[in-house]
């Protein structure tokens, strides 16, 4: 079968195609015929040795996100059966409960082989069934970006109808945040460097779009747009460089979920105290959150925002497209 490997991790040029024997069926694992995979910002970091401890073998298969069909199961597998349409939680061992640091030991596309393959042997305890209305390409966008957005909005943010949600930029996590928040009756404000992208996210349901290039004090624009109240939940996908403004834009008792490393800076935190706001570090989420999120996606029939689909053999083009940041939402790869 064909796979992609991360090679020497000197940048996009290191991605290399390889062939391997078909995976064997082993205890506790399911073999998945991968139908689609999706890219995340961190895949750009992994391929450039900028993510975590950077001790990955050259043969590591990248990508934490994908969707496919179960074609074989090993002994002891009871939760999924042959023919099931599934996705996997990014941290394969994080089934429920609180975060423990050892979970990075089974992280798809980082410390264990990921989804850039024709067939994947996956620990069955990490799998979850997907709603019928999702195509393979749509389902592939869920595991990292979707669950991260869900974790900020629900387990961390306790979103309720009528809340205002602020999402920064129009990347994968932000657009998932937009769609999940709209499904829960929230008002959504989203920022972008591009008016064209803002028009697209408005078509997806965003109530207010703010161009952070032409409106550098976008925090004030958020306050103006909410009659001074601010955002109840902020998806802080950018990093400490935008955090001061995110706190300014937050409401009293606001919840700011911090996930991003796109821009580092020197944040002013005093607003947290004055507003009784909460800043939470978020590390994607557990399988329980994935299952809860899929329930919401199924009930609200959310159609994930797939920007562009590349062929499996064009994987390097998909990476380059993500890096160009021309997308909104998700960049996806089809496996045939």
């Amino acid at each position: 079968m064909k796979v992609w490997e991360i090679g020497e991790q000197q940048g996009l040029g290191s991605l290399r195609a390889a062939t391997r024997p078909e995976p064997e069926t082993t205890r506790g694992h399911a073999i998945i015929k991968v139908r689609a995979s999706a890219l995340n910002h961190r895949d750009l970091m992994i391929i450039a040795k900028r993510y975590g401890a950077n001790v990955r073998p050259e043969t590591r298969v990248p990508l934490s996100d994908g969707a496919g069909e179960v074609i074989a199961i090993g002994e002891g597998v009871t939760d999924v059966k042959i023919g099931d349409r599934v996705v996997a939680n990014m941290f394969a061992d994080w089934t429920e409960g609180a975060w423990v640091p050892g979970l990075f030991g089974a992280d798809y596309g980082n410390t264990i082989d990921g989804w850039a393959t024709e067939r994947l042997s996956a620990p069955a305890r990490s799998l979850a069934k997907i709603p019928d209305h999702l195509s393979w390409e749509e389902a592939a966008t869920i595991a990292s970006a979707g669950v991260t957005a869900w974790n900020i909005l629900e387990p961390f943010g306790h979103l309720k109808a009528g809340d205002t949600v602020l999402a920064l930029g129009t990347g994968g996590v932000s657009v998932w945040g937009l769609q999940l928040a709209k499904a829960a009756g929230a008002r959504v404000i989203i920022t972008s460097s591009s008016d064209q992208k803002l028009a697209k996210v408005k078509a997806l349901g965003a109530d207010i779009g703010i161009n952070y290039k032409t409106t550098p004090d976008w925090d004030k624009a958020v306050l103006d747009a909410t009659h001074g109240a601010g955002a109840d939940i902020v998806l802080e996908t950018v990093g400490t460089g935008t955090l001061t403004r995110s706190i300014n834009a937050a409401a009293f008792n606001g919840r700011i979920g911090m996930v991003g490393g796109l821009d580092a800076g020197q944040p002013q935190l005093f607003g947290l105290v004055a507003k009784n706001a909460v800043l939470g570090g978020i590390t994607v989420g557990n399988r329980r959150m994935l299952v809860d999120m899929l329930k919401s996606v199924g009930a609200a029939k959310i159609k994930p925002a797939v920007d562009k689909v590349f062929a499996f053999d064009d994987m390097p083009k998909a990476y380059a497209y993500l890096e160009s940041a021309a997308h909104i939402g998700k960049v996806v790869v089809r496996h045939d």
Partner: protein
Amino acid sequence: MKTWELGDQKGIASLRMAERAEPKPGPGQAVIAVKACSLNRRDIGIAGGTYGAAKPATRIPLSDGAGDVVAIGPDVTGVKVGDRVTASHYTTWLDGTFDPSVRNADLGVSIDGWLTERAVIPAAALVPIPDKMSYAEAAALPVAAVTAWSVIEGLGRIKSGDIVLTLGTGGVSIFALQIAKMNGARAAITSSSDEKLARCKDLGADIVVNYKTRPDWDKAIRDQTGGRGVDIVVETGGFATLSQSLAACAPNARVGMIGALAGRPEAPPALFPMVGNNITLKGITSGTRRMFVELLKAMDATDMKPVIDKTFAFDDAVNAYQYMVDSDFIGKIVVSVG
């Protein structure tokens, strides 16, 4: 009656004694014959004019006090003459989430406080004192103990076996130590003084670190927790200590940001460990009347007694302020009245 007033707020020497007519309760108000008050760090800032906008010179200071109800105005329910009471200092924040409007009725700040023989207090904010608790003990609680409770219970949802870290040995920190212990948690505390740390050990502290002799106190705490780190931080130091507090945290830790004892930070805090360790940081503005009631129930059930370092006479209130400035105390400083 005799009362203290803030005066022109140029420092604690501006505090002045005045003579006033006996107060009469308006609608929704109660008059309290004050028996004891206590000081908080912010009272130094208020007296020095550095805590928000200037207050009227006639403002009566202090957020914390206790006494007997001696008169009630129209429309007062829930308390009667003769009740022993203290009060929630944000007098309109009875329950629920924070609203900035609570600052408009803050005892000793935006409305008159407790450093007076008879205080006029919005009756809805009054909280009955358990029988076995003295006035001085009750007067020690409203700001410092409720703030510690708000971090440890409200934000931290403490469970037995957790480790709570608190910085310094002032009012909030000593309450944090005691509240941690009453919940079956382990308590870690830092101080500039080995003597104070020895007193904390007597109070039940499990881990003590001198932050003067161990500038890398976060490492010392991590070592003493077997490398695991702490679950809840009562962050009284402020943004100057935050990076080290975060470095001392276990995964999923809850950090309540309340103070600024350590001054202005030299560098912005390093937040990155928050993401990889799923840490929560929350701004805390004291707490609600409901939290106060819960705290009193817990103190009553576990026989927890506030640590009162020293008690000053009403006429010596300025010396109580000076004693706080000198920082040679642990826990609370009380003024006895009447």
